[in-house]
């Protein structure tokens, strides 16, 4: 397969990478190892680790950081940005619709079954319209590239997309280690993200809030794999990081327990899943949530970001309909393309997929993190047959996509620079405005030839640059 190399066209260096190329060529011999060690020490010191479950060993691991940045031109970025914002608007319009009159279902554009029988559909919030009609306030859209102007959306993340702390820290560490690079290249900043996030959260304060809204970040606690990110964001926004037990409901409001008595909370940026939010409404055994929270939410005493039930929009089955949403709600043609997807609960699709397993990528509808998937061309016959049996047992649980020719970006390996496959997750903020910082999280598959970029599967991260004009 022929892969688009983002830095080289044949042996020619593409324009955005020109100065980086000089930087690499004039780098002294042992400079790279020295800097790599320095970067790792910085990450360890700051405490940026993630937890990998079920594999034994040290649960606190460093995510591998690659010092070679990934670069976008201003024009490329503008185009992506328009597409991302469009998609974010459509997804929120869809959520508002399916918890209301569900026009899109009535119009026959999306099968009712996919919406109402979806596990992420929350009957408890039907008819409630959150402030400004926004359900998903932070949308992470995973993009892959196959050619100069060809981007595809791999999936949407409407619940609580993680990884933004890596985007910010990668930049911080690159700027600290290589200030010269930032003087030589004109790179758009990303460090305004925490301010924008706070502004976004404040902009969706409930109607009952008349002063400056008090926002908090709600975490499952310090045992959670993303705890570092939770405390990082709370710290940079200057808001409290709370656990469920720090909050309580009294009358029509939610309060946090402080040393100066109860303090009202208006906006909760929650990093816990729907089922754990409120034991009185969802899972009764949840110790992470706040009893009575949903009552306050329903009566407009508090905003929850993202809104309970937002997950119905980022399901892999719903995914295939997002371009349809763009046409239906916005009357526009989608700027970002979906990857062609076969849904295995349809007979024709099922037949096609089963005949071509060796060429396809098959994923679980509700899976995430790169677990429970089959990459046909990279699998042995036995692995394929084992997976076939799993599909036969429950076809409705799977979708399939063609194996994409993911673009590559030069990455530091033992021998020097080598092409490795990358994806991109920008974070789109939706409040009174829709905005995103120029950049995102670039994940890179460090194993040669690997197409799986997830950190749990041997992926690393890169700083992502958008050049200014």
């Amino acid at each position, binding site marked *: 397969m022929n892969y688009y190399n983002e830095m080289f066209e044949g042996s020619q260096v593409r324009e955005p990478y020109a100065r980086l190329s000089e930087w690499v060529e004039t780098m002294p011999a042992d400079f790279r190892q020295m800097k790599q060690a320095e970067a790792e020490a910085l990450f360890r010191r700051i405490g940026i680790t993630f937890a990998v479950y079920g594999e034994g060993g040290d649960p606190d691991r460093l995510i591998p950081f690659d010092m070679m940045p990934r670069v976008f031109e201003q024009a490329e970025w503008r185009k992506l940005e328009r597409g991302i914002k469009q998609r974010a608007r459509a997804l929120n319009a869809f959520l508002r619709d399916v918890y209301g009159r569900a026009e899109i279902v009535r119009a026959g554009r999306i099968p009712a079954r996919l919406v109402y029988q979806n596990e992420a559909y929350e009957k408890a919030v039907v008819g409630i319209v959150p402030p400004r009609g926004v359900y998903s306030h932070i949308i992470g859209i995973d993009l892959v590239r196959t050619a100069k102007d060809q981007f595809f959306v791999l999936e949407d993340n409407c619940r609580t997309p993680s990884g933004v702390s890596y985007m910010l820290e990668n930049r911080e560490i690159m700027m600290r280690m290589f200030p010269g690079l930032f003087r030589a290249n004109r790179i758009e900043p990303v460090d305004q993200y925490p301010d924008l996030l706070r502004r976004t959260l404040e902009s969706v304060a409930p109607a009952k809030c008349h002063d400056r809204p008090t926002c908090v970040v709600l975490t499952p606690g310090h045992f959670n794999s993303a705890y570092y990110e939770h*405390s990082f964001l709370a710290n940079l926004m200057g808001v*409290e990081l709370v656990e469920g037990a720090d909050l309580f409901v009294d009358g029509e409001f939610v309060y946090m*327990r402080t*040393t*100066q008595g109860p303090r009202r909370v208006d906006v909760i940026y929650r990093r816990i899943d729907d089922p754990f939010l409120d034991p009185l409404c969802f899972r009764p055994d949840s110790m992470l949530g706040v009893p009575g929270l949903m009552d306050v939410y329903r009566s407009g005493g508090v905003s929850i970001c993202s809104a309970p039930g937002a997950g119905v929009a980022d399901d892999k089955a719903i995914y295939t309909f997002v371009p349809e949403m763009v046409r239906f709600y916005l009357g526009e043609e989608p700027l970002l393309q979906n990857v062609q997807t076969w849904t295995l609960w349809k007979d024709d699709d099922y037949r096609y997929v089963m005949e071509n397993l060796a060429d396809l990528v098959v994923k679980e509808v509700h899976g995430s993190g790169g677990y429970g998937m089959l990459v046909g061309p990279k699998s042995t016959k036995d692995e394929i047959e084992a997976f076939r049996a799993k599909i036969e047992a429950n076809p409705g649980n799977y979708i399939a996509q063609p194996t994409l020719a993911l673009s590559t970006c030069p990455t530091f390996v033992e021998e020097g620079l080598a092409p490795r496959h990358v994806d991109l997750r920008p974070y789109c903020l939706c409040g009174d405005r829709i905005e995103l910082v120029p950049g995102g999280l670039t994940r890179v598959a460090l194993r040669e030839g690997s197409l799986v970029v997830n950190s749990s599967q041997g992926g690393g991260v890169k700083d992502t640059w958008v050049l200014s004009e």
Partner: protein
Amino acid sequence: MLSRTAANLFWMGRHLERADTAARLLDVGQRITLLPNTASGYQNEWNSLLQASGTATLFAEKYGEISQENIEEFIFFDRDNPSSVMSCIERAREAGRIVRTALTSQVWDALNVAYQDLRKLEKTPCDRIDTGSLTDFTTSHTSTVRGAINATQLRNDGWHFMNLGYGLERADATARLLDVKYYVLLPRIEFVGSGLDTYQWQVILRALSAHRSYHWAYGGDITAARVADFLILNGESPRSLITALYEAVWNLEGIAKRYGETVPTNARDKAREVLGRLQAHDIDMIFDEGLHEFLTWFIGEIGTISTLVHEDYLLGGS
């Protein structure tokens, strides 16, 4: 500040001080058992020390026999013993990790290094380490953390809660160590003033790193009344009850001033009252009243202040 954050800072301070106390307790025991002519052999002394720290039953259940290795393991490394150095450092670090953003990176570094080094020490074969180095290890690490706190933390309410934890724990620990000496180690009145008596007082002073400062302050001989005065009522002595309590009051005043009148101040009021009563005592009054009775009263009052701190600030007014 979130009540949970304040509680973690408060308990971080307490656990660090408690780790220190555990190490000093080990030192006291070690030195007392080096004295050959005690009443019923060293087993008795160790048992008394364990009783004083409230862990004798736990020790008996888990180890049964008293031996140097068992005692070291129990007081230093045993995670089943909530007062062991390991338990305390581990909990202090855990509390620190939860409130990472309320700590400076220097404080976190010092705390984290203490924990990592302790885990390395845990893997060292026990015949390679002696008791003295375990105590030194602990006091040196806890001092580093304390120093980082004083040098780098913002003087805000969080700082007050941390130091309040230190102060209350230290007051409690000194009182208990004193009580061990007077009530447990020397139960028979005819020993008072004997060589053994003096030696034990010396050990207590040494355990509190106060041996030299005592001589600076009082010169001359070690007598029960002077040592007790030094450890209870002397405002210059860094670990005396009055100094530790004074620090607790000072921190509670700081919190009360910051929070204004809408927040209850029962803990401060109580601490002020106890401090007032302490100041009204002289050492003869304490001995007349009975040192053990006095210390029992004092330990009870420290417990009350701690409970009031929780009620005033750490429950979040619900």
